[in-house]
């Protein structure tokens, strides 16, 4: 049972190879498990840990040990990228995750392009990369996952989202120029994470959903940039997880064209059905975060067992966890995977 390490298990799963049981992970970024229970019982806390590499790696370590997730997930927010490109960020509190305070550009035509490589040079990105580096050196068997905000979501975090969405129809060329710029930055940032020792890169792109964009715009503005980013990560030598939020009904044929190594989805998506429709896909998900917060150990265990019957390749939460999720429920999740597998 314990013959293979969590790192090897995850990499084998992402490579489509056989494993003893699915890994159970929480990749960081939007989907991180730095819940209040973990922080109050340890010395590493948010919001301070968003800035300092030692606090960040310390907290990621505590999260991993306390929750039983089989990875380190870094960072704990999705604001590092947009902040580097000019957005104001509110760092939140122990209970409340950071968020974009204000997008600096009113439309895609007004975006000021910063010199290439700017994300990697900011203090917060450096903290993220340092934390990944020290964790991956110290723990060879536990995979460090670097979490990157997707191109469309990053673009919609530097341009006011409502005009941004209109610009996808009326200012297509300028929108592509912004996405090209953002995507280049994200590629550099992801490469630095991989150089630091990240075993896997996870891309979450919550604005790039079928529900918001529909299939046509998803195909034109989300798919190519997600694939470009995934290709850059592959070229750097590690696999990629792509998380798509919301209902994917309208974009199923587009999902088949994504070049990630695993597709992570929200709770309303039936992964068994999706697998049937998209042969060869590696699925990740999708335990309800509502259940994790408001359920109990019994109901969580029951749901985990039901999900495992759907042949999901990698077990993970379906969406961002509430910071008030009880640690007992998260432990019930991870141990149910270990016991059932």
């Amino acid at each position, binding site marked *: 049972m314990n013959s293979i390490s969590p790192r090897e298990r995850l990499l084998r799963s992402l490579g489509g190879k056989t494993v003893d049981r699915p890994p159970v992970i929480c990749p960081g970024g939007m989907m991180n498990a730095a819940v209040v229970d973990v922080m109050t019982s340890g010395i590493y806390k948010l919001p301070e840990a968003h800035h300092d590499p030692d606090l960040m790696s310390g907290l990621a370590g505590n999260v991993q040990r306390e929750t039983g997730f089989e990875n380190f997930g870094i960072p704990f927010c999705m604001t590092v990228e947009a902040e580097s490109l000019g957005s104001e960020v509110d760092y939140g509190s122990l209970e409340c995750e950071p968020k974009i305070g204000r997008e600096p550009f009113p439309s895609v035509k007004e975006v000021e392009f910063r010199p290439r490589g700017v994300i990697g040079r900011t203090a917060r990105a450096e903290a993220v990369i340092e934390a990944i580096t020290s964790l991956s050196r110290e723990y060879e068997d536990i995979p460090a996952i670097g979490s990157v905000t997707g191109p469309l979501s990053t673009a919609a975090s530097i341009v006011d989202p409502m005009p941004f969405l*209109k610009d996808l129809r009326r200012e297509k060329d300028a929108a592509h120029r912004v996405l090209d710029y953002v995507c280049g930055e994200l590629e550099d940032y992801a490469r630095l994470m991989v150089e630091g020792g990240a075993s896997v890169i996870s891309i979450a792109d919550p604005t790039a959903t079928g529900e918001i*964009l*529909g299939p046509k715009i998803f195909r034109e503005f989300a798919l190519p940039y997600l694939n470009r980013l995934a290709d850059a990560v592959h070229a750097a030598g590690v696999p990629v997880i792509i998380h798509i939020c919301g209902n994917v009904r309208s974009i199923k044929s587009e999902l088949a064209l994504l070049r990630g190594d695993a597709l992570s989805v929200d709770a309303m998506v039936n992964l068994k059905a999706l697998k049937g429709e998209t042969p060869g896909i590696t699925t990740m998900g999708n335990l309800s*975060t*509502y259940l994790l917060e408001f359920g109990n150990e019994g109901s969580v265990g029951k749901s985990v067992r039901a999900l495992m019957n759907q042949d999901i390749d990698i077990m993970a939460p379906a969406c961002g966890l*509430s910071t008030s999720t009880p640690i007992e429920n998260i432990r019930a999740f991870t141990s149910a995977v270990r016991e059932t597998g």
Partner: protein
Amino acid sequence: MTKEKLYKGLADAVVDMDESTVARLSEEAVCNRFDAYETIDMGLAKGMERAGQLFEDEEYFVPELLMCSEALTVGVDILKPHIRRSEREDKHKIVIGVIRGDTHDIGKNLVKLMLSSAGFEVVDLGRDVPTNTFVDRAVEESARIIMISSLMTTTMEGMKEVVSILQERGIRSRFKVVIGGGPVSQGFADKIGADAYSPNANHAVRLANELVREDAREPK
């Protein structure tokens, strides 16, 4: 052009996101001294209604709906100065906002624009709104409906708090509370004692219409 044909043309142009045709037909309505209020109601708003239906049917998505609304606004801006004062009836007021802790406001903005084009007066509290503010502003504005949006499981509890605050202050019956957003469901609305749940922006308009009608029937 007959009135009916012009109204139909305006509605089509809104659905087609065609701002220049909306502008041309709106000017024409003004030149022909067609009733401005009726032109908005029977032309532009009808188009937006159809756009909302296309959105609900998943033929249109957010960018399309926003462009339709942009076209509608072009027409409203031309026609509004020509509305006769007597026709400016009292509109029902709705306060709307995204609950504290949450900054995802695309959904809320869609609901707001659908409600405005359906003739409601919408007071937008923005995003990351404290629970007390929903209640305070609803009272100040004498609103009939409070609409709360949340896109994160993390912030759904705030919706319950708004309902509790209304109860504690003894003013629960003065307002209809409607909730919506990704993780929210009818079950959750029932659980926290909200009056209704809306799964999408178009549905929110139907709900608002029903709620104000119900409200009018209830004995004071």
